């Protein structure tokens, strides 16, 4: 049977015409991408210069090798600090994000002004990147791990509460109705009808955020917010590229191990 006769068979609907707006959307997307990359209006992105300049850094890259392994023991302490910053920030950030996420979901917070205020606050918190938070807190409380931890906490609240409130939006409403019918108050409904449904997601998000924190706290030290980033900054400033390569390899191994552990944990808990 040809395509034409399929459409014409008795009682079958004809295929609805595709909305012209989808074509407009695709066109707009292509136009904006071209605009952003073009030499005339945008940043002038072209692959040719990538290749012509590729060898220019070869002499610098060569200095990365061989890595100066004698430097390794001196990175252990800042690396431990990075790990500890990530642990503390994840615990506090994800812990604070849990109640906030319930206040930012229409399922657990039907009161619109409260919901709106919380969602707006979360959007504001999420608007700043972690490095900017670190700059602000370094200015406020001085250098060291404290501003780094504070920056990560804000970053974590933004990420976790966003993901969690969207998860709460999607829970099965049946148990909520049951808990309401049993005379439970709002807090009890959240605790016993909603939380058990979203707990596996919460654990998964928290582990993910912990991974993000390990990576982020490696960078935060560049602005003086503690951790291994301080060493990266020093090595970069004094052109000690053989030290830098040791740090990079170390971070790579460390993040890889953390990821393996968190995958294993997630599989066991979720």
């Amino acid at each position, binding site marked *: 049977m040809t395509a034409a006769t399929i459409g014409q068979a008795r009682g079958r609907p004809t295929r609805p015409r595709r909305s012209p707006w989808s074509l407009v959307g695709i066109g707009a997307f292509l136009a904006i991408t071209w605009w952003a990359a073009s030499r005339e209006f945008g940043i002038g992105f072209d692959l040719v210069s990538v290749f012509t300049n590729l060898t220019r850094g070869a002499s610098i890259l060569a200095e990365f090798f061989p890595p100066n392994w004698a430097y390794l023991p001196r990175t252990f302490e800042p690396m431990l600090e990075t790990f500890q910053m990530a642990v503390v920030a994840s615990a506090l950030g994800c812990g604070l994000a849990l109640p906030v996420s319930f206040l930012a979901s229409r399922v657990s917070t039907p009161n619109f002004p409260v919901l709106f205020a919380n969602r707006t606050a979360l959007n504001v918190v999420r608007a700043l990147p972690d490095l900017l938070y670190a700059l602000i807190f370094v200015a406020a409380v001085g250098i060291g791990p404290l501003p780094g931890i504070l920056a990560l906490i804000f970053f974590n609240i933004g990420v976790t509460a966003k993901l969690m409130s969207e998860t709460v939006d999607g829970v099965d409403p*049946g*148990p909520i*109705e*049951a*808990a*309401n*019918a*049993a*005379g*439970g*108050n709002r*807090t*009890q409904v959240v*605790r*016993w*009808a909603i939380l*058990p*449904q979203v*707990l*596996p997601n919460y654990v998964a998000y928290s582990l993910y955020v912990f991974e993000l924190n390990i990576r982020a706290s490696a960078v935060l030290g560049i602005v003086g917010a503690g951790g291994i980033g301080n060493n990266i900054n020093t090595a970069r400033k004094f052109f000690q590229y053989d030290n830098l390569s040791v740090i990079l390899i170390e971070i790579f191994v460390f993040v890889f191990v953390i990821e393996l552990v968190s995958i294993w944990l997630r599989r066991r808990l979720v």
Partner: protein
Amino acid sequence: MIRFLNASVVYPGGVQGLKNLTLDIPDGQMMVIVGLSGAGKSTLIRAINGLVPLTSGDVLINDVSLRGASQKQLREIRSRIGMIFQTFNLVKRTTVLNNVLMGRLHDAGTGRSLVGWYRPADVEIAMQSLERVGIVEKAYVRASNLSGGQQQRVGIARALAQQPTILLADEPVASLDPPTSHVVMRDLQRINRDLGITTIINLHFLDLAKVYGERIIGLRAGELVYDGTGARADETVFRDIYGRSLTADDVMGQEAPAAIPG
């Protein structure tokens, strides 16, 4: 005593859930509501515990008006009204006992229930409720590991844990197979007779309604079109409630395995 006084529910969008319903349900009665889907059965049930607010008229539970009740008073009224659901509405990821303890929330206090430190007396009530529906051995099993019939019994136990004076059942057997349906209906009948709990059940199988309904009311487009005993409700009556001739889909079609003699 539950009294509907000229009660109406109009949903946002203009759909009429209930229309000028006036009805008395005396204490201890086992009443079955029949009607087509969309006739207002679920609305009537949910008007009794205030899950659906009235748009006019009133519902009195033991002379207390639902219309004027504050949120706190409403929770107080709901705590004395158990409810079971077509889809059981259990938290599937947690244990049977935790689900049943949901019936004790009203008495547990916010702080205590937040951390899950229920009083031994509350746990005892929950265990007794599970014993009454015969699945206490499943107390520490995840709810998702139970069969449909067992899950509905957990739902009943959760309602019983409230120590209610009224039990509402919204299509309690619609998701179950016929033999299991009769088991659950007999559980409800026994609870009604042994504990004297006023029991109001939505059903769409007419033969089940006749067997278990001490009293049957019929709804059509939100209006009361029949009110009488199960014995008196014959095919003509049901045709009248449904506004069409009856089909094989309207009956469950399996003989009740010896309902408890009245």
